[in-house]
């Protein structure tokens, strides 16, 4: 099948890939760009393990062709945090035991990151609703919710202190 060039910005870097039009974004991220943080859990957009951020929105990258990402700004779990340390959310998931097998975690944290951009001070109910597109089979969500609420509080208190 004829391939075409797709250019996108991934975690701040410009990347060019040659893809078939039918290739799903998740496989291009994982197999061509070797960003194996986002995972494949269902390929039907139910589980959210493949969640990435595209142009400021949470997207299940198994539900989108790579060619549709032409020109897009993409952030994956690998783009959170820094060489100096973990992102507040990553720290918080560790602190509050918000993960077990780790398979859903990259999608979960990436989604939580966007959720806190959309709603910096969510209630527990808003977190549960806002995270309902991401399935976890291990934790029962209780500690995931706790991790997100705690990260939100920490981010808010840091930004208040900065003002």
């Amino acid at each position, binding site marked *: 099948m004829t391939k075409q060039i797709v250019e996108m910005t991934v975690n701040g870097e410009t990347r060019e890939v040659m893809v078939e039009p039918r290739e799903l974004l998740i496989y291009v991220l994982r197999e061509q760009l070797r960003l*194996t943080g986002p*995972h494949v859990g*269902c390929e039907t957009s139910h589980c959210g393990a493949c969640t990435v951020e595209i142009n400021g929105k949470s997207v299940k990258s198994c539900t989108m062709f790579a060619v549709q990402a032409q020109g897009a700004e993409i952030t994956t779990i*690998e783009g959170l945090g820094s060489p100096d340390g973990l992102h507040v959310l990553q720290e918080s998931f560790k602190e509050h035991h918000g993960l077990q097998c780790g*398979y859903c975690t990259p999608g979960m944290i990436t989604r939580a990151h966007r959720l806190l951009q959309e709603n910096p001070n969510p209630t527990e109910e808003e977190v*549960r609703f806002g995270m309902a597109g991401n399935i976890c*089979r291990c934790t029962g969500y*209780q500690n995931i919710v706790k991790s997100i609420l705690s990260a939100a509080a920490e981010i808010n208190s840091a930004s208040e202190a900065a003002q």
Partner: protein
Amino acid sequence: MNDLTPDRDERVANLKGLGCSRKRVEDARFTQGKGNYIDDISLPGMLHGDFVRSPYAHARVKSINTDAAMALDGVIAVLTAKDLEPLSLHWMPTLAGDKQMVLADGKVLFQGQEVAFVVARDRYIAADAVDLVEVEYEELPVLVDPFEALKSEVVLREDLDGQTEGAHGPRKHHNHIFTWEVGDEAGTNAVIDDADVVAEETMYYHRTHPCPLEPCGCLASMDKVNGKLTLYGTFQAPHVVRTVASLLSGIEEHNIRVVSPDIGGGFGNKVGVYPGYVCSIVASIVTGVPVKWVEDRMENLMTTAFARDYWMKGRISATREGKITGLHCHVTADHGAFDACADPTKFPAGFMNICTGSYDIPIAYLGVDGVYTNKAPGGVSYRCSFRVTEAVYFIERMIEVLAIELNMDAAELRRINFIRKEQFPYQSALGWEYDSGDYHTAWDKALAAVDYEGLRKEQAERVEAFKRGETRTLMGIGLSFFTEIVGAGPVKNCDILGMGMFDSCEIRIHPTGSAIARLGTISQGQGHATTFAQILASEIGIPADSITIEEGDTDTAPYGLGTYGSRSTPVAGAATAMAGRKIRAKAQMIAAYLLEVHDDDVEFDVDRFVVKGAPERFKTMGEIAYAAYNQAIPGVEPGLEAVSYYDPPNMTYPFGAYVCVMDIDVDTGVTDIRRFYALDDCGTRINPMVIEGQIHGGLTEALAVAMGQEIAYDDMGNVKTGTLMDFFLPTAWEVPNYETDHTVTPSPHHPIGAKGVGESPHVGGVPCFSNAVQDAFRPFGLRHTNMPHDHWRIWKTANGLGLHDT
């Protein structure tokens, strides 16, 4: 001692040993997307495998034409049973003593069965080629009901036709697999027939699926130069996979390396050996390059390892005062097309004979008949020890039905029948020796915590209000008290394919006082790298942060039977403690030499050996480790290493008391879990944070199974719930917050008293959720209704009880 010496509490805290909520060492990797799961592994030149699967549940395969598929650019091979037959790999043995087709040999027996294996350059080409394989089928009559299968003239397993003896004794019919009986049937019937009160009920524990978020997969790499096969995969029992791979392939076991990388949840799904593994190995041997096979979600739900599917018929008898006198249970077990249950060899229905539960029942009988149908094979223990969820659901429902029969409160009925503390170790009527327990204390604590009497009062008021037309919401109080049986198990009665179910730990202390320990188990999210280091820290006085835990590579780890049935802590955890004690014994000799005293004159104190009566004279474990490598100590070999293979003397018996408060909208069937209280007793608690996490997760999987999750088939054997659109996995929106609590009754035979906990919440949770639903309708005459309690079924229950009549 001097001012610089940390005090004892500080030294204990530094170890991060037993009992502390140590943060998980796995998480820095996982939170950054740096996990290494099977589909993350890529080898140079790797090919991709994909299956042609049967659209029919029962059909003869008339012909397979692979020409068009082979002609597609990028397709390397298409394997069929004919290609595997010369290697005798077109069938494979199952864990249950049966055999299973690797690729369809003349016929297919369930929808989704593997028919041909395509090997191609990438996953897209493989999928294209799957569509190009032409298979001609002739449909055969389909049997999806085990009771019909036992009457039908249709022979499902033609390969077994005429065989009246199976792996577990006589077969009564061509679709019958085995009969397994435990206990005294005549005696039990006599007691029940003469009893004051008898309750009978038939219940169906529906078929479901463990559905870990990561599906099953493997990557086989045959190195033709050195003759070594490396097999990466989602294996809950990597060492057993190596042995099986060697026996099947003829490759000597030392030339096979099996690696379980990070596993994205298992819950029993990743115990078995699947056709994808066999085909990948063969394809790699044939092509000489690595071959990867990873199933997709539909393949996972439709073909690899279902759970449950037990039709259970019970009779329970009691005195008028409620003292249980006997229990009779018969199970018709639907095993699907091949008996691929993952149970210890001598237990074709797992530990279903724990079905007398937490109660002192003097006489009992269990009979299980296994049956072939046109459904997927499997029968794994989904987040439970072998068939224990079925057993606990059965007895906890029978107790509720008996309570109705006696017109008695179900909490009180439990209380008067619990095995008493002083009866442990307790011999059950069906052959188990319960090691320890204190059920009354746990029950009283649970009922007090939820204000049980207050809840009953509120419920009665709600029923009255409902009758007066003031509300359309009913309230259910779900109770369950469970006893698990985990930690398989004693080698004398537990084996898998002949391999005794011991487990192992090997420890090396490095000269600078840090350590590595390797175990025969494999974490799938349980946090072994964190918790096993804690066990060891307390045993050998080296901080957990200085101990690396490694599992899953058969070239480096000692042989073990793997992680399932909550056996890691009871068995490998015990091996860890025992190996640690060997280290400590040698360290004691070294310390005594260094301190110039007799071995018996030093004693272990947290992180050091001290001279008895002179605590200022000591050698830390760090100093001892260094000495082990740099000093010639008379009579002591250099180095500081130990290995332990632990054969547990008995299973462990964790228990717990759960209460669920649920509101049910009678007109919509919608449920709202208002409160869930879970008290668990898993013996000595290694890491409370991890324990609570396990309980939250197990309860959520219980909620799923009880409230909606099922693998359903239509009459044609089509899977109706093959995607996550139809197969219920709860999201954060549907799941409540859980209250956790505990008592501690250490196991008397386990080196540190731990019992295992990962599966308890699932085992106890399913009947608790179900009992809450049933309890809400008890005042309106409901005795029993089958799970899963989705909105539609609850609505039907309410409708059937006339609650929608105006």
